[in-house]
């Protein structure tokens, strides 16, 4: 089913390829196929209609940017609109906090609670769990068994009936823990007693985060449920569970739209380690059933990048820390480095894996470090000796090791780009590359 949908989506995109002006009929067809793809991924019907309207209007009204053809132009709009739906970031700090889990029956709260406990534990935090599910038989056994596996204390009492009291006692009993996760009973929005209970639990715990757990298979109902939960306790993050099945998780999108929050985690598997941070690109690809989302992004990002990075100079080997700074700044707007590198027309050249191994938090650190360098140092990193390193580190509130790491990363990038000049896919590839870049200057 999905395959044929993404197939027709691709066909619709192809039809746009050769056009010189934006063709209303072709755009309409594309939008229609997109609608079908999104609807069968359980995205909220109203959301789909809004989205397709925005795409249609923007595609037809917006002026074609220079150096882009119709297909790229429309693709860029499609991508931007989709990203706008999911790209709200849910912040996740490694600091003392209380997390309240909320969700429908059987959405996977208890399993996810244990997985999150494991996540924070691996980050070196002291974690404790409170089982506030006093309704479902076996809930405490389930959570305590899972917690015992990872040596996380689990507070609860299978015989208790008052969730509020359990939570109060629990908070007192494990107050030495840095991260406290409160698992609650499954409930849905049409049960006023239970909604009142979670409002009370939220007040008692003064929860830092209230995360809504959504089953990837949840359909149109997601929107309504999320809205009610949001009204009750103010959801500030969504977790999608059961992504290891065939469900596309479109319902979670509706939840995100309703709560104006981001997706924190994705649960995909039955073991305690199967929890991932959310990756917007992977998610959208799955939603549309299109693997080659990168192609979709390609031109969008190139267009943005043109003004910011002197690619030609970079390719000639004049790659300074200053260039890297600009690049990092651009990356902030564009997403993971790997995608940007992939989108460069480098043929089949493989880049060392280490190049990608920089997390976005690292990126931020690097920029701060570079902020405390002098212009001279930025232009000629060779100047940086150990006393300068000391100064830079102090200025940025970091350690000299960090500066060294930054320089190492710079060297790797430098080498990579230099390597591109000589090797790569040969002369033809190089010519294409230059042609592409000259258009962007």
């Amino acid at each position, binding site marked *: 089913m999905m395959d044929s949908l993404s197939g027709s989506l691709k066909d619709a995109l192809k039809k746009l390829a050769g056009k010189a002006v934006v063709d209303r009929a072709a755009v309409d067809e594309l939008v229609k196929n997109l609608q079908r793809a999104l609807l069968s991924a359980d995205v909220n019907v109203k959301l789909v209609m809004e989205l397709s309207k925005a795409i249609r209007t923007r595609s037809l009204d917006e002026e074609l940017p220079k150096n882009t053809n119709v297909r790229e132009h429309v693709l860029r709009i499609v991508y931007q609109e989709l990203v706008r739906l999911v790209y709200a970031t849910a912040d996740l700090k490694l600091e003392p906090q209380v997390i309240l889990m909320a969700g429908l029956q059987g959405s996977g709260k208890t399993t996810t609670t244990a997985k999150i406990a494991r996540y924070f534990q691996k980050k070196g935090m002291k974690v404790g769990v409170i089982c506030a599910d006093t309704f479902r038989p076996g*809930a405490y*056994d389930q959570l305590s068994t899972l917690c015992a596996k990872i040596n996380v204390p689990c507070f609860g009492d299978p015989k208790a009936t008052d969730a509020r009291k359990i939570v109060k006692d629990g908070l007192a009993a494990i107050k030495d823990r840095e991260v406290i996760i409160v698992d609650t009973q499954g409930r*849905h929005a049409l049960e006023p007693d239970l909604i009142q209970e979670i409002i009370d639990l939220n007040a008692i715990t003064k929860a830092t985060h209230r995360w809504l757990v959504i089953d990837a298979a949840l359909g149109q109902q997601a929107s309504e449920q999320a809205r009610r939960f949001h009204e009750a306790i103010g959801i500030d993050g969504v977790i999608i569970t059961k992504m290891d099945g065939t469900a596309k998780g479109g319902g979670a999108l509706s939840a995100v739209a309703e709560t104006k929050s981001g997706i924190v985690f994705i649960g995909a598997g039955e073991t305690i380690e199967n929890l991932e941070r959310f990756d917007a690109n992977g998610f959208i690809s799955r939603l549309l059933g299109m693997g080659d989302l990168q192609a979709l992004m390609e031109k969008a990002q190139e267009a943005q990048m043109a003004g910011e990075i002197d690619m030609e100079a970079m390719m000639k080997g004049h790659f300074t820390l200053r260039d890297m700074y600009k690049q990092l700044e651009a990356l902030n707007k564009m997403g993971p480095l790997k995608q940007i590198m992939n989108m460069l027309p480098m043929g089949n050249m493989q880049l060392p894996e280490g190049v990608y191994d920089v997390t976005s938090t690292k990126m931020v650190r690097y920029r701060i470090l570079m902020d405390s360098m002098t212009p001279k140092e930025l232009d000629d990193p060779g100047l940086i000796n150990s006393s300068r390193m000391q100064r830079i580190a102090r200025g940025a509130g970091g350690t000299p090791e960090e500066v060294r790491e930054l320089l190492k990363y710079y060297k790797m990038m430098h080498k990579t780009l230099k390597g591109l000049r000589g090797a790569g896919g040969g002369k033809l590839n190089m010519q294409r590359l230059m042609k592409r870049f000259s258009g962007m200057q």
Partner: protein
Amino acid sequence: MFSGIRERLQAARNRLGASIGAAAEAAQSASAEQAVPSTAAMPGKNPTLADKVKILIIERELVVSEKDVAGALDELEMTLLESDVALPVADAIIADIRTGLVGKHRRIGESVDTLVVRALKSALLKVLGTGLDLPAYIRGRERPVKILFTGVNGTGKTTTVAKIGAYLKKQGFSVVIGAGDTFRAGAIEQIGVHAERIGIKVIEHQTGADPSAVLFDTVQYALAHKTDVVLADTAGRFHTKANLMSQLDKIRRVMKPDLIVYVDEAVAGNDAVVRAAEFDRTVGADAIVLTKADMDSRGGAAISIAHTIGKPLLFLGTGQAYEDIVPFEPGAVVEELLGSGA
């Protein structure tokens, strides 16, 4: 229940009726002026001129054209999608209604409404099938009747087993439950507590044991104690996990169930179709239980799943208490969905 989809269906019914009615008026006025009806009123199926004359002049009938109903059907499709009917299923239903309406000769004077409702009703009934009366089924089989429950994680299998246990007990059957979910932490405790509350014997092994062995023992117990019904709980599993599906297949081979009940939730969206089809293909499914119907007034998943695997719906789960389970009667549901006068 399903009040959401009911309202929408009735709105669609009114719209369909109105657009056909409007077309009828146009056709009538045209025929009055020219004696031969205007072709604009019926571009859909292109009946021959003789047909038209016959219909409009001689038999005074009207042909419903595709154009007459196109707008209303598009709207109906959106309605179905909003009600969580999966896309391919919604397509199929709409196509069915279209063939039910377009080209139909309607005698002038016959209510448009009747025509529309008849088409909607037959399309829905075709999808929802006949239902299954479980107590009658059990009475008609050799004891013990073995019922195996399957489904993906978190749809409410364990709770459903307890509810059906309580329901059958009330109907006068003796019941034994097999705690076949040996994987999920707390599952055996969960079914144990349920069974104790409703006064049903549970056969259980330890966590991590072979579920086939547990359920085999349960069947042996039932044979020895002349129990009427065996309810076999299993661990939730995704249809994408080949190993777990073959485990389920082994369970089926070992305990030889009379009835395999596939459990899914009423709030599931399009994926309901994918996984129901996959479960049906790999281990089979003879009936469906839809849980969490109280969360959702739309009931689209019922339509999707029933359409996909073409098996009867047994029960709807409608709450957290043991008595919150309703035998599913398609006729009554369709009647309720479309309102009276159908």
